[in-house]
């Protein structure tokens, strides 16, 4: 009973929030609706028993990606007239993508319904009695170790690429060297001299 109510609640909110993401006039509101959609998607994940994926969805997408997204969108100066002018031009393209996605979804569900995709024949049948962190760990770090490491490598390359592309080494900046500051003692900077009156100081 309560599962059914929760499912329909989350599902309706995902769809509603998704629709509002597209239609909201204010881009900041759009991002916030997107966050609500992520959040409810995490709720759906919980209902199918994938608590690890649900938590990761919230931590990664809601907690990090969407924060940076919001950060950027808040600071953008967006011209609404220009955006709307583009809408008509990109509409056919958008409709095409939507049609392709719809067709794919229908095919996928149809193929699933037609049978023949026995769950036990999948690459790694998930044991039902294990918490799914253990189940995923057991698969990722044994059977899919190389693929997993390759994925990590791709991310590393992407990260270095992003840093290299955006890094500007500006000349003439004087950056602070904290270690050197901490190593500096009074003797290095201050000298006590018993200066005779009437004579200049030699520096």
């Amino acid at each position, binding site marked *: 009973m309560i599962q059914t109510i929760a499912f329909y609640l989350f599902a309706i909110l995902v769809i509603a929030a998704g629709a509002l993401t597209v239609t909201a006039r204010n881009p900041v509101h759009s991002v*916030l609706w997107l966050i609500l959609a992520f959040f409810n998607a995490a709720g759906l994940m919980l209902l199918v028993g994938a608590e690890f994926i649900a938590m990761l969805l919230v931590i990664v997408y809601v907690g990090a990606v969407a924060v940076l997204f919001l950060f950027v969108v808040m600071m953008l100066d967006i011209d609404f007239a220009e955006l709307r002018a583009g809408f008509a031009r990109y509409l056919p393209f958008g409709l095409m993508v939507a049609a392709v996605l719809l067709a794919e979804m229908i095919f996928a569900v149809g193929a699933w319904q037609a049978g023949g995709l026995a769950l036990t024949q999948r690459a790694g049948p998930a044991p039902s009695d294990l918490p799914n962190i253990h189940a995923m760990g057991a698969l990722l770090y044994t059977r899919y170790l190389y693929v997993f490491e390759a994925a990590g490598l791709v991310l590393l390359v992407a990260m270095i690429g992003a840093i290299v592309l955006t890094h500007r080494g500006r000349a003439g900046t004087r950056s602070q060297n904290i270690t050197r500051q901490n190593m500096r003692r009074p003797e290095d900077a201050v000298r006590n001299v018993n200066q005779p009156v009437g004579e200049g100081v030699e520096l």
Partner: protein
Amino acid sequence: MTALFQDYLGYGFGWFLATLILILIIALPLMLAVAMIIYADRKIWAAMALRKGPNVVGPFGLLQSFADGLKVFLQETIIPSAANRGLFLIAPIITFTVALITWAVIPFGAGMVLADINVGLLYILAASSLGVYGIILAGWASNSKYPFFSAIRAAAQMVSYEVSIGFVLITVVLWAGTFNLSGIVLAQKGHILGLVNGFGFNPLLFPMAVVFLISAMAETQRAPFDLTEAESELVAGYQTEYSSMSFALFWLGEYGNVLLMCALNATLFWGGWLPPIDWAPLYVVPGIIWLFIKIFAFFFIFSWVKATVPRYRYDQLMRLGWKVFLPFSLIWVFLVSGYLMLTRYGA
């Protein structure tokens, strides 16, 4: 209790009612604790500055927080005309709610936990990463420049320190072998030679405990990392435009988060509800008292730091997060996992 309710009221409804009551059993004393901890904070802070602190309302000024609450409650709620109304009002509610929901997974004693879920630590990470939204939204919706600066600072600061907090938590999880908070506490029983309870006593994990304590201060925007409300630069930061109850919700949420971070420090590194030394007579004291003593000890450290350490500059804060804590905790993850690999699983 859930089982009792389910006997009388049926499975679904009994569970619902029992959970609701348990939530109130945690949330209401928590609000009281927040009120008293604000008083304690002011007293400690005053004592460090050789002042008396609040001493007028009630005996020793104990009722000061309640008087403040009443005052704030009776004030008028002012919404700036240029503000984004809906978001302006939602923002403090988000901060307050997020500060409360995380307590669902904190174990107060053996079996005394509202939600004993096996991804408890991830839940805490998820909930604490939501905390930033209240601040960003408050800053943006106020439509005023100082709150907005504060929101930008808060976003960058919290995202930065969450990274090293994540690595610290990984070392704890590696050692405990579970994400469940009760499991983590039990894994600390008799940690060193069966004598002391707590990962913090382990020389390999103690540095991580320190990193976590400092990151917790940065994550809750307590001094010396309170750049989001640096009054010399940003008036009152993201709270500038807020008044009355909406301001009070920020206030309560902030201290709720501080208490939560103290509880996490106690639970993850210093044995949670277990007594510090694994010695039978100490178990006579109920676990919840040990937890409260530890939480208060950490809160004292937080207050102490607030009273004595000057505020960081923004670039120093970022340097500490990215250039010191991140590499350090990353190396420490390698070190701990390597050590465990050698000792626990064989080379």
